[in-house]
């Protein structure tokens, strides 16, 4: 998305501007606290066309669309305009450039939400207020005098209900009637001083409120935050005063969901609720998406149709060897047939037909081997075109959609902040606050995705600790499946050893990081939104936009990773690596030499690595060592590159090297003791 600086142009210039090919379109910006229904309004206004993009220089994605002759922007949910975090910075920039602001307000939380409204009005912006959740007001027998509210604020107040789209027909009216409201009079003399230095009023206010970024922009020094506090407190008093005048409560009924909310806070009831929730998430993602759906998309769509047909086409014209493994009903290899085409398949139609017939029959697995290094790089086992496409579209995409769906669902239900609250004290012990539970839970599904959600944590320190925990000790769903199968055959002792070793590593690692990384973690201070059943249409839209954003972002890095592994394979470095690891595997980990393959493959994809252990004849203790090592071993390429991107080269590489050392060190020590 291109972000244009605010335009202050004279009417003459405006005229010329309008005559140019690019007309100046009014910017309507939706602003509001988190969970007030901004997205519902945005979705309604945008219809089909939406442009999602990361805000330049940040990782926050912004939705932009056209509405009639105007541009509309959705902004991240904020409690105030300033630069406290990335979301606020992005929202601030868009608000500053806005022509008209539609401020979405949750009618049930007037006291909280009007703070932002008054700030927008004090900034001198043209504002209209959409008083959302007006249907909930009736249910809870709360009355808000909208006319009086509108009079006190000095701007239009339109009652809406996002669920039934009630009041949405008045959005045009709201845009048309947007105006500057009743600003706080005491601020005028102070603002005037800055406006005289030709600073626009909106930015002048932010400077008065101690916004460092804006002050820096105009080279103005702010010494203390006293003036912010003063302005904030008087604004808070104005809000309280307004709420006192406009809101009446008849009864305190209608709090079934808030009762559920309270139950999920207290560990006694909250932990069983968490267990049920995790089980449902497991059924959906662990069982339905990652087993059934991915099985079909990856093996059938990806390998059987896409890769097979593309590779056959290449094989028609190039020197290649093709092997077809014949499998029995349990998926075990019982026979292999090789086909050799020195000049490509099209030169030998007889053999080509024989190959096609065999490879198209059921229970076969076809492997193409191209002799030309460039073709191998593009279409081979780790081919940039073949492997990456299969991974991205047929493996990762369904998983990503599944995850973002669950995330959006939990987010909109108001459950996550309560979970974070319940677990806050536990996480304090390792230098984190309760919010860290969200990326860690996601890590059991897919580390790659979880790496990205560390963004919701308050400080760099917390992001570092959680990222390290994810890469070191959390097995992803693919690994968990293989580990479960291996362990179930091995008995109870290996299970106990595995759980206690991984648990100890988790505690040690987080304690050490907590001591080593300087600084303090951010304290828990979160608003607990209403518990409610999410609007599915909203959940679907969120899922779509986020999945799209993720694929756009991660896609490139996947190609880079595949190129790296592909080059290693062609140059023979991959084999060198396997051989280098072999002594470590045999003497230190006491595993067969071939286990080294499992480790190297584990880098490409962790479940490949773990699955490689199936083929080896291991005893129970060897299985224990192998799965401990695989769990602690380096993250897969996908999550490695995403981690590098999120945390930078220095930190990413330190974590990566750290996982190498810890996996072999700890795995080896256990091997020396138990095998």
């Amino acid at each position: 998305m291109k972000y244009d600086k605010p335009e202050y142009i004279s009417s003459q210039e405006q005229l010329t501007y309008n005559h140019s090919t690019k007309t100046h379109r009014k910017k309507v910006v939706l602003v509001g606290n988190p969970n007030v229904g901004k997205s519902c309004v945005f979705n309604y206004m945008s219809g089909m066309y939406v442009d999602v993009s990361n805000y330049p220089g940040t990782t926050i994605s912004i939705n932009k669309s056209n509405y009639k002759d105007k541009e509309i922007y959705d902004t991240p949910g904020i409690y105030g305009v300033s630069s406290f975090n990335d979301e606020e910075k992005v929202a601030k920039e868009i608000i500053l450039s806005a022509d008209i602001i539609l401020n979405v307000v949750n009618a049930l939380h007037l006291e909280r939400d009007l703070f932002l409204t008054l700030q927008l009005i004090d900034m001198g912006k043209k504002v209209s207020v959409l008083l959302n959740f007006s249907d909930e007001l009736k249910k809870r027998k709360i009355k808000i005098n909208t006319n009086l509210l509108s009079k006190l604020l000095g701007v239009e107040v339109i009652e809406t209900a996002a669920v039934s789209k009630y009041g949405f027909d008045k959005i045009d009216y709201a845009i048309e009637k947007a105006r500057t409201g009743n600003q706080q009079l005491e601020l005028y003399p102070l603002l005037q001083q800055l406006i005289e230095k030709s600073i626009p009023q909106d930015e002048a206010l932010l400077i008065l409120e101690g916004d460092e970024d804006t002050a820096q922009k105009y080279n103005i020094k702010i010494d203390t935050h006293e003036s912010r506090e003063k302005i904030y407190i008087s604004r808070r008093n104005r809000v309280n005063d307004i709420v006192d005048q406009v809101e009446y409560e008849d009864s305190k009924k209608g709090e079934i969901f808030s009762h559920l909310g309270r139950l999920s806070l207290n560990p006694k009831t909250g932990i069983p609720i968490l267990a049920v929730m995790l089980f449902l998430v497991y059924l959906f993602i662990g069982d339905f998406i990652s087993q059934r759906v991915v099985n079909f998309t990856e093996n059938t769509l990806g390998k059987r149709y896409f890769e097979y047909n593309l590779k056959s086409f290449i094989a028609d014209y190039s020197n290649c060897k093709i092997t077809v493994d014949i499998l029995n009903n349990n998926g075990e290899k019982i026979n292999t047939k090789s086909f050799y085409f020195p000049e490509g398949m099209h030169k030998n139609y007889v053999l080509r037909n024989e190959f096609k017939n065999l490879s198209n029959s059921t229970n076969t697995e076809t492997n193409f081997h191209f002799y030309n290094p460039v073709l191998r790089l593009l279409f081979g086992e780790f081919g940039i075109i073949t492997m990456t496409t299969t991974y991205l579209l047929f493996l990762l995409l369904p998983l990503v959609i599944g995850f973002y769906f669950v995330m959006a669902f939990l987010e909109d239900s108001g459950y996550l902040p309560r979970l974070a609250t319940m677990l806050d004290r536990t996480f304090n012990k390792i230098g984190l606050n309760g919010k860290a539970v969200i990326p860690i839970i996601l890590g059991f599904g897919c580390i790659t995705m979880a790496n990205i959600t560390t963004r919701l944590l308050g400080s760099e320190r917390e992001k570092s600790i959680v990222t390290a925990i994810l890469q070191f000790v959390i097995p992803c769903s693919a690994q968990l499946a293989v580990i479960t199968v291996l362990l179930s055959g091995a008995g109870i002792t290996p299970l106990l050893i595995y759980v206690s070793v991984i648990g100890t590593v988790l505690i040690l690692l987080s304690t050490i990081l907590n001591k080593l990384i300087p600084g303090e973690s951010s304290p828990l201070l979160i608003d607990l939104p209403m518990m409610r059943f999410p609007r599915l249409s909203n959940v679907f839209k969120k899922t779509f936009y986020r999945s799209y954003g993720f694929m756009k972002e991660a896609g490139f890095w996947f190609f880079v990773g595949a190129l790296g592994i592909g080059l290693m394979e062609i140059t023979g470095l991959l084999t060198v690596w396997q051989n280098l690891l072999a002594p470590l595997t045999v003497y230190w980990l006491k595993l067969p030499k071939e286990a080294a393959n499992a480790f190297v493959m584990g880098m490409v994809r962790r479940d490949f690595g773990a699955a490689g252990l199936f083929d080896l004849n291991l005893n129970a203790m060897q299985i224990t060592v192998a799965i401990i090592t695989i769990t602690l071993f380096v993250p897969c390429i996908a999550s490695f590159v995403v981690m590098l991107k999120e945390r930078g080269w220095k930190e990413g590489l330190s974590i990566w090297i750290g996982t190498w050392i810890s996996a072999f060190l700890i795995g080896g020590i256990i091997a020396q003791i138990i095998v």
Partner: protein
Amino acid sequence: MTLDKAKKGNRVTIVNLPPGKLKAQFIRLGISEGDSVLCSERLPGGTIVVKKNRQEIAIGYDLAKKIKIILE
């Protein structure tokens, strides 16, 4: 006394909030010095949930220790 010592069901007046950004965040969320809030939940370990009208805010134990209150 400080907020971490409040019991579930106590109605308290906020006397003093920690300075700086945290204070600004409290005010934005709707809580400022002099406000009366209900301690609606006190979790094992000391995390506090306060309620002002329908608004619920969770406050970590370490932060709660820095908030001066008086019981009403």
